[in-house]
């Protein structure tokens, strides 16, 4: 503890305010970018930030856009995303983004302004208990109540966010605590007695798992997002090549092995490909790494991988044996476990098994039904063709599933998507964050017309930041995924899923011959009003030209609106709660 005149280590320690220590902490943590939106109880921090130049501040147009941008930045760079907002509504606008990051294990540190301590609990202006609100949707949340705790808490926040299973941390900063003078030092080290992320791998368990792998007749790797989070894609690919064991992946695990690799079968789950879901149902050993066996990939639990012994490697003990019974549980970081496996594995004889999978792949290859219109598949395949390296960011819905089905991923092409929470409105702001973190890589956002409108105000951010973002809006005038469920399971009662509908439309419009009113907004005009470029594509042969045009806009975003047919469905599909072997293949 220091006072203004106390002598520490022989020199006089000059006290500094909490706001100044905050700025110092950002520098020490190597924070290059803060996604920030000012307000009454954050104004002092922004004032301190104004006087420094090591950390850039990006000002989005809404706090939800802000946190998704920080999330896209973090996922695409591997660095920790930092948010700074004011109290009350500034803080509550982060909630969806915190939950999104929590589900997909994204390291974020979210600083929220707060009313002074003496006003807390008083229903003061712009006061909310943000720690109470976010406690169940983040990795850690705390209010700084004493100035002397500030440095330690910020240090802990960055440590907790990025280590173990990464996740968002919320730090609430009361105005008076931040004004108080105190210790000028930012701690170099911290130790948290209740938080010791596991390191190392239990070699005995790993040996047992590898032995089962070599003994299996129909082994299958299941690659989850954990492999991508620990940047172990290349190591994993090497492991797969050494063992010759085929791979299926979750959507978060897609890209862990290049998607055009001969041993990659496809994604599994609700919209997985036929061969992948068959392979899971028929395999005798499922070797999973970095997945939590979410209901979207398992389908009916007790019919999931019914013939298989299951190995489960995950960094989170609570993910293991939670949804499905596991025969060999291994708590470890995916990358560490894969590295350890190199010394243990041998090539497996999988020729017969792979040719069986090959037959399934030929039986029902992944392909959209041709009907004369431009399909999502053709657009995504054009992206595969036209861009060698890219960060692809999606929103949530049909376009997201089509992307996860058809996008080609490898070491130079990355996919960012809200897999766990399925947050509409995520894609566009996340793409902004990804482009800020990767200024030299093409960033392509694929969104639907619904999700695009959920954070469309961020167009101003993208233009203001002069980002050459390419924004593909797959416009089918509908909330397509819900509409698809209504089409398949709800007797075509399209309740509330037509985004073209107006009050004057027939109440229950069934007559498809009636001309619909023009779609609002006009995305091309909208882009132009923000000084971005807008292109509308209605035919297949215009796709490549549109992308070529977009690439010329190096200082501003391009919106390409693709008009697609609302009757297009994402197939195959396993109905929620059904067994994976029970796939709908056409409709």
């Amino acid at each position, binding site marked *: 503890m220091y006072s203004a005149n106390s002598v520490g280590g022989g020199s006089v320690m000059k006290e500094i305010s909490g706001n100044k220590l905050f700025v110092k902490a950002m520098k020490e943590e190597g924070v290059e970018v803060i996604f920030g939106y000012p307000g009454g109880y954050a104004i002092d921090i922004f004032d301190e930030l104004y006087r420094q130049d090591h950390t850039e501040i990006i000002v989005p147009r809404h706090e939800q856009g802000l946190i998704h941008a920080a999330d896209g930045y973090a996922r695409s760079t591997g660095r920790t995303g930092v948010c700074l907002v004011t109290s009350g509504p500034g803080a509550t606008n982060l909630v969806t983004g915190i939950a999104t990051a929590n589900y997909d294990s994204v390291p974020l540190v979210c600083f929220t302004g707060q009313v002074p301590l003496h006003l807390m609990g008083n229903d003061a202006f712009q006061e909310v208990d943000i720690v109470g609100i976010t*406690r*169940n949707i983040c990795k850690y*949340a*705390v209010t700084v109540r004493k100035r002397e705790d500030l440095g330690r808490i910020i240090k802990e926040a960055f440590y907790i966010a990025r280590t173990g299973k990464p996740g968002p941390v919320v730090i609430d900063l009361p105005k008076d605590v931040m004004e108080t003078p105190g210790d000028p030092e930012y701690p170099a080290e911290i130790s948290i007695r209740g938080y010791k992320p596991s390191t190392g791998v239990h070699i005995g368990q790993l040996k047992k798992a590898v032995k089962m792998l070599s003994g299996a007749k129909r082994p299958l790797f299941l690659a989850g997002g954990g492999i991508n989070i620990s940047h172990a894609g290349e190591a994993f690919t090497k492991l797969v090549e050494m063992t010759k064991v085929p791979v299926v992946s979750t959507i978060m695990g897609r890209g862990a092995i290049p998607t055009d690799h001969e041993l990659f079968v496809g994604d599994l789950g609700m919209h997985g490909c036929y061969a992948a879901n068959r392979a899971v149902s028929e395999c005798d050993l499922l070797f999973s790494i970095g997945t939590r066996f979410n209901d979207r990939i398992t389908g009916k639990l007790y019919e999931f991988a019914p013939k298989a012994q299951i190995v489960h490697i995950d960094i989170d003990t609570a993910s293991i*044996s*939670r949804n499905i019974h596991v025969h060999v549980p291994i708590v470890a970081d995916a990358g560490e476990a894969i590295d350890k496996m190199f010394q243990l594995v041998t090539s497996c004889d999988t020729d017969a098994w792979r040719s069986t999978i090959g037959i399934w792949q030929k039986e029902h290859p992944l392909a959209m039904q041709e009907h004369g219109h431009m399909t999502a598949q053709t657009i995504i395949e054009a992206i595969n063709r036209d861009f060698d390296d890219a960060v692809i960011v999606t929103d949530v819905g049909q376009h997201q599933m089509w992307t996860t089905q058809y996008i080609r991923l490898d070491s130079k092409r990355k996919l960012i998507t809200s897999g766990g929470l399925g947050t509409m409105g995520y894609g566009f702001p996340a793409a902004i964050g990804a482009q800020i973190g990767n200024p030299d890589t093409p960033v392509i956002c694929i969104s639907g017309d619904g999700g695009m409108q959920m954070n469309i105000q961020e167009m101003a951010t993208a233009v203001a930041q002069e980002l050459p973002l390419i924004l593909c809006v797959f416009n089918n005038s509908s909330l397509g995924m819900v509409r698809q469920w209504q089409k398949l399971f709800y007797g075509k009662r399209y309740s509330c899923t037509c985004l073209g509908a107006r009050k004057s439309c027939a109440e229950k419009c069934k007559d498809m011959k009636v001309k619909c009113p023009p779609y609002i907004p006009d995305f091309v005009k909208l882009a132009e009003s923000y000084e971005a470029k807008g292109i509308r594509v209605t035919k297949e042969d215009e796709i490549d030209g549109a992308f070529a045009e977009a690439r010329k806009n190096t200082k501003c975003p391009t919106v390409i609106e693709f008009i697609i047919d609302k009757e297009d469905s994402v197939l195959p599909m396993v109905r929620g709660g059904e067994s994976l072997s029970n796939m709908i293949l056409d409709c």
Partner: protein
Amino acid sequence: MRKRWVSLYVENEIGVLAKISGLFSGKNYNIHSLTVGTTEDATVSRMTIGLISDDDTFEQIKKQLNRCVEVIKVLDFTAVSTHMKEVMFVRIDHISPEGKTELFHIAEVFKVKVKDYSKDSMLLECCLTEGRNDDLIQLLKGLFRSIEVVRGGSVAIESISINDR
């Protein structure tokens, strides 16, 4: 489904009780009883939580508790020798003279104290195991018309040598 006990060492900070109780409600686990108090170390609190669950859910609860940054240590007291006691007050009103005599007998047998007394009311202070407190309530409900019960929830500590559940 059976009764389980966990003992938690947690940070003695604002919001930790809310974090733990919120974890139970958010994940749809049921708390039967929860007690919390400080320890010999002022920065650490100790919680004793009683719950009823199946094996798989209980495993998951322990893992979820362990994940909390605020939780320092999780001890499973389900199959461990512990000393466990619960404080309970029972107030009995409208007692007949014969009832009073009966109550003194009961107090003697159950080893509970008669802490307060009036013409037709009595207050018992009980420091028994949860099960014995249950038994006493059952007995008193059968014998008396008007009883009022306040229970404190169990606190538990690992035993040195003997089992006293």
